[in-house]
């Protein structure tokens, strides 16, 4: 079922949680709402659910498919909601938690006790918790509780599944596992899902499309790939990964910052360039295009690439670079070593308001 939000805004007293926004989510899509805390992502999710009311306005509306649910109460919206802290009924067994939605139906719509049992057992099997049916929430691990919470939300076969930081309270390994499992479940059952996260990696890995938010505004909506390669503005660029900053004055096509020099094709004046760690190349000697001398302060060879931290007098904050293990060994990188950086690519954004973007490639 598709979701269509039109002109939705929310203010709490005098603070604006959401500025008026539109959002369309296609049927069967898995969309991540990504943003720092206070960006309005959870408020937006709760508005979709109906747990929060948007500001009243004649032009604002929420549609699930063709159904106008703007004034429909949460309990009648047919959504499944997964809470960050699970919100399991602590006095009920796992079985009763999952069965709750079915047993709370009005008598004439309620399935028979035996059918409820069959359906709950099927859900328990799906979340791989068959042996835990009689346990209480407090007797389960965080990951298990979140799976119960998911099964509970899916028991009524909702058209729309909403998840509020579903894996936020779990440790890294369990989170990784549950993420893949959720993606799998989503593809199998074909519901429309919206989830909230502040974890860029999670959003990029799990979503079909990501909605990046800040200060109650949508900054960009795109597929993970596009988002990462073509950020619409500086906020998105900075939020999606580590950023190295180079600030200086440009004169006659050369940017100067202390002893650092870099050839750029930019007009004269003050400029700020941004670079991702993987866009930095480490050299033993300076190149014709650049002279950016740095000192290695640490190198972490754990993972697919080596993370190298670099400092220099002309840098106000250290830079991060990733190098391949082969280069790491070839350059004999160690702490205290002096090297030169050459950017493969850099990004420049105008003022936050102008959303101007420019990507240049040297060499």
């Amino acid at each position: 079922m598709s979701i269509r939000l039109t002109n939705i805004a929310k203010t709490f007293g005098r603070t604006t949680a959401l500025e008026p926004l539109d959002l369309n989510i296609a049927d069967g899509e898995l969309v991540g709402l990504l943003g720092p805390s206070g960006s309005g992502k959870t408020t937006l999710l709760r508005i979709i659910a109906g747990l929060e009311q948007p500001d009243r306005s004649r032009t604002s509306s929420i549609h699930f498919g063709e159904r106008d649910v703007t004034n429909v109460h949460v309990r009648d919206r047919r959504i499944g909601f997964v809470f960050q802290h699970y919100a399991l009924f602590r006095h009920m067994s796992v079985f009763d938690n999952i069965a709750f939605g079915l047993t709370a139906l009005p008598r004439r719509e309620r399935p028979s006790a035996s059918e409820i049992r069959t359906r709950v057992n099927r859900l328990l099997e799906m979340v791989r918790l068959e042996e835990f049916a009689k346990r209480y929430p407090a007797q389960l691990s965080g990951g298990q509780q979140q799976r119960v919470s998911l099964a509970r939300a899916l028991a009524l076969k909702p058209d729309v599944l909403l998840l509020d930081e579903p894996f936020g309270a779990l440790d890294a390994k369990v989170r990784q596992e549950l993420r893949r499992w959720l993606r799998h479940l989503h593809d199998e059952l074909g519901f429309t899902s919206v989830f909230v996260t502040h974890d860029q990696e999670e959003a990029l890995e799990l979503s079909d499309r990501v909605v990046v938010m800040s200060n109650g505004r949508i900054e960009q909506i795109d597929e993970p790939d596009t988002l990462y390669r073509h950020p619409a503005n500086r906020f998105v660029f900075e939020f999606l990964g580590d950023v190295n900053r180079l600030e200086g004055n440009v004169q006659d096509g050369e940017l100067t910052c202390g002893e650092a020099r870099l050839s750029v094709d930019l007009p004269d004046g003050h400029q700020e360039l941004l670079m991702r760690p993987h866009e930095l190349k480490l050299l033993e000697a300076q190149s014709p295009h650049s002279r950016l001398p740095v000192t290695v302060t640490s190198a972490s060879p754990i993972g697919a690439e080596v993370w190298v931290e670099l400092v220099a007098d002309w840098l106000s904050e250290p830079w991060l670079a990733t190098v391949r293990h082969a280069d790491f060994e070839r350059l004999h990188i160690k702490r205290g070593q002096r090297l030169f950086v050459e950017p493969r690519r850099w990004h420049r954004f105008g003022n936050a308001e102008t959303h101007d973007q420019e990507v240049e490639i040297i060499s």
Partner: protein
Amino acid sequence: MQRIGDAPRTRRLLIGLAVALSVLFLLLPLIAIFAQAFAEGVAIFWNNLSDEYTLAAIGLTLLVTALTIPVNLVFGVFLAWLVTRFEFPGRRLLQTLIDIPFAVSPVVAGLVYLLLYGSSGWVGSWLDGYDIQLMFAWPGIVLVTIFVTCPFVARELIPLMQAQGAGEEEAAVTLGASGWTIFRRVTLPNIKWALLYGVILTNARAVGEFGAVSVVSGSIRGETNTLPLHVELLYQDYNTVGAFTAAALLALIALFTLAAKAGLEWRATRREQFR
């Protein structure tokens, strides 16, 4: 490392002191009550107990308690729910208002009710026109008892409901449950022990309330005399044994209440350990 009071001698002294004081101030008076009640033998005790006016006082006290508890149960749950589940202007003020009966001396409460609902009071004179008398009659006693005991349930529930948050109720509503279903199947099971605890405290106070009740009751024997008032009346009549018989009855109710409270607390700690 030694903490203060770790030396065996100091410890024995401190424990001994605590026990001695408890016996002197708490246990001894209790024993005295029962000793006095049975001072002239079991037969006289029974005689005093089955006295017409004593029976009437017991009946009235039970009636007042039986009416007060359900009213404050509903009111307390409603208030706690309102204060913990909603944001509205005046929420803080309401939370403070709940404590007024604790802050005000019961005698003052009684007087205020007398002024308001007495036959010459604002509300009382209007009711008088319909021949309804609240003061110096059992309804007045019920009213002031409700006033005096109304914070107990709410005060027990508010911190608990605040700590538990609205998460489970929100989960229930997203699962399509109606308001009543949510209350019955989610809210109530989560607060039931605190609620029972609040009821026990309400009960203890409702049975024993003296100050506020004495102002509005008029102490008419057999009609508006509650058990605590009856104790005083008998004592003033120089019927010491009778007074202590009624007092023993009150003490028994109190002990029973305490036992119930201890039982609940024991159960609560056991549940904690189990979790």
